[in-house]
């Protein structure tokens, strides 16, 4: 009986086997999840104190794209592999990609291997820089490009208002938290720094002349110049990509948003005219719109208006206290990050999708998190936290790294320097 069934079944099985793949039923797979790539950064040849490997590992961690494997788990055979690569051995460690470096003098040789793609490097490049940190950052940018198609933003810097002991000054730190430099010597509280689009200058507010005036200082430090000194508020400056400067002023009695000429402080236009408090302007990437905070409908909420003023439209409807809107620089993904206070009185970061109006929460359960600022490519957000210091998060993966431990407020992320 079994034999009979086998004989009867044989022709159909043969038919099925003979058929090509074209007649296979077609299905669609969608809704892919996001997985961090398991990345190994083994010991670097010529890197005596391990600083280069440590820096690159931190850079890769900050991107929020990778799960950095613990080098202690790498067998000695792999640690001493040099720039060579054996995909079979790294598979056993669980690595999906491996970054190799060799440091000699002022030069850095970098290799990127993807384990599934065999023993040939997907990226092989040499770098030379006066500071080894810059060479590592350049390599890190190329690594990010190799995996995402877009270069990283290492080398860019973040301006913050230092809020430790003494008068608050404006400082600039590398986006990985390295190389902090104080750029103002006002001797009086300075706050709300804003990098100019080219990164050469920083606008900020200082109480040096006993009034919150707007000042501009070179990003490299030096003598600051007072740009706007109208009575009352001259604060919360925001630059457009084309160099226009919007800020909150109150010389007419009420807090309104104005546009001024950054060279001489001349008022070009009053953009809001409402008995309520309007503040915290932020330009859209194309400069055609401005997001701002207003309590014109009761509680502070985020509104959007034309960059020339008028047509204000409320865009947040959840929560009682939303502030510090920061428009993503990505034109292809219109979204606004903001600080919101939840029903427990805790400030956290939220992301508003401008296409759908949907609000997503980015931080929760780790103190209060405030004042978001986008990386130049719109892929990362930096913010301050009551946990202390400066944090960077990839909003896509929610991977968060503390990059700087100083006391600071209101960060502003500058552009990537051009070489």
């Amino acid at each position, binding site marked *: 009986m079994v034999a009979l069934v086998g004989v009867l079944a044989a022709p159909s099985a043969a038919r099925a086997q003979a058929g090509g793949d074209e007649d296979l039923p077609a*299905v669609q*797979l969608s809704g*892919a999840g*996001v*997985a961090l790539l398991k990345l190994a950064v083994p010991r670097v040849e010529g890197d005596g104190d391990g600083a280069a490997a440590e820096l690159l590992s931190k850079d890769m961690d900050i991107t929020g794209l990778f799960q950095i494997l613990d080098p202690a788990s790498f067998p000695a055979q792999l640690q001493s592999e040099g720039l060579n690569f054996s995909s079979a051995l790294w598979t056993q460690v669980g690595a999906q990609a491996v970054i190799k470096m060799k440091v000699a003098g002022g030069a850095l040789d970098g290799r990127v291997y993807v384990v599934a793609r065999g023993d040939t490097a997907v990226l092989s490049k040499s770098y030379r820089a006066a500071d080894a940190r810059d060479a590592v950052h350049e390599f890190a940018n190329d690594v990010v490009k190799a995996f995402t198609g877009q270069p990283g933003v290492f080398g860019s810097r973040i301006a913050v208002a230092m809020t430790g002991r003494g008068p608050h000054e404006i400082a600039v730190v590398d986006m990985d938290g390295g190389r902090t430099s104080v750029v103002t010597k006002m001797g009086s509280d300075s706050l709300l720094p804003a990098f100019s689009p080219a990164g050469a200058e920083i606008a900020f507010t200082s109480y040096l002349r006993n009034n919150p005036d707007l000042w501009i200082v070179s990003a490299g430090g030096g003598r600051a110049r007072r740009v706007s000194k109208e009575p009352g508020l001259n604060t919360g400056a925001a630059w457009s990509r084309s160099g226009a400067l919007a800020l909150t002023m109150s010389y007419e009695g009420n807090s309104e948003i104005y546009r001024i000429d950054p060279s001489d402080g001349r008022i070009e236009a009053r953009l809001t005219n409402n008995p309520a408090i309007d503040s915290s302007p932020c330009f859209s990437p194309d400069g055609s719109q401005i997001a701002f905070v207003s309590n014109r409908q009761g509680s502070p909420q985020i509104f959007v208006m034309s960059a020339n003023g008028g047509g204000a439209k409320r865009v947040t409807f959840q929560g009682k206290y939303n502030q510090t809107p920061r428009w993503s620089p990505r034109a292809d993904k219109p979204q606004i990050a903001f600080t919101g206070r*939840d029903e427990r009185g805790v400030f956290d970061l939220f992301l508003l999708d401008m296409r759908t109006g949907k609000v*997503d929460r980015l931080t*929760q359960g780790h103190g209060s998190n405030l004042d978001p600022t986008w990386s130049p490519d719109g892929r990362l957000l930096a913010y301050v936290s009551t946990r202390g210091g400066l944090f960077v998060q990839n909003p896509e*993966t929610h991977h968060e790294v503390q990059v700087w431990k100083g006391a600071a407020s209101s960060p502003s992320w500058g552009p990537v320097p051009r070489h």
Partner: protein
Amino acid sequence: MPNEQQRRGPRRNFAGMIVTLALHGGVLVAVAAAHNKEEVPLIVSHDFVRAEMVKLGKPRDKFWLPRITQPPRPTAPPQTLKVAEDPNAKPAPKEAPRPEDPKISKNLKNALERARKLEALAADEEPDQGALNGSKLGTSNTAVGDQYQAQVVGMLHQNYNFPAGLTLDQIQNPPEIVFHITGDGTLTGIKLVKSSGNNFVDDACVDAAKLTAKVPPPPPTVRGMRVQCEK
């Protein structure tokens, strides 16, 4: 002088031992056969649905800002469902044969027999399409096939992960893979047949099948699948 009963005693005991041995042997063979029986993964007989456990409580006021409540996506490949066998389970009672209806005449019986033969001939010309576990009342020949596909897609989805940083917008041309499914549900011959132009996107599509590795045994009509990996 031994009587007749005493004389037959040893012979009866010997026959009893033979019967007892045969019974025990039969039981042992049955038990061994039961243990050697290949375990067949469960094919869920209802439509594939994805469900999430919802916490009991008062719904969140939509006025308030959202909270992060979603658990992380599972990354481990799911295990194939198996039914634990209950050794103490009683066999289902056999249905008693229905008594023949005396009202049905011999002619009617012949007519029914002819109808069955005609039905069988018709079936040879255009076989019923559906699935072995389909319903007699079913009218669609694709619904159950889709159910199996949905099961497979659901399992592939568990392993369908893009490397972080690749925005889905970067997929201009969705990659396509094919694979075959053996009788026990093992995925073989996994290959990329249409590239997206991005190696990592292609890898994500291929890995979805490679990491899944095994799916429930397919219906006889399914020998493989062509999968297009969308955004």
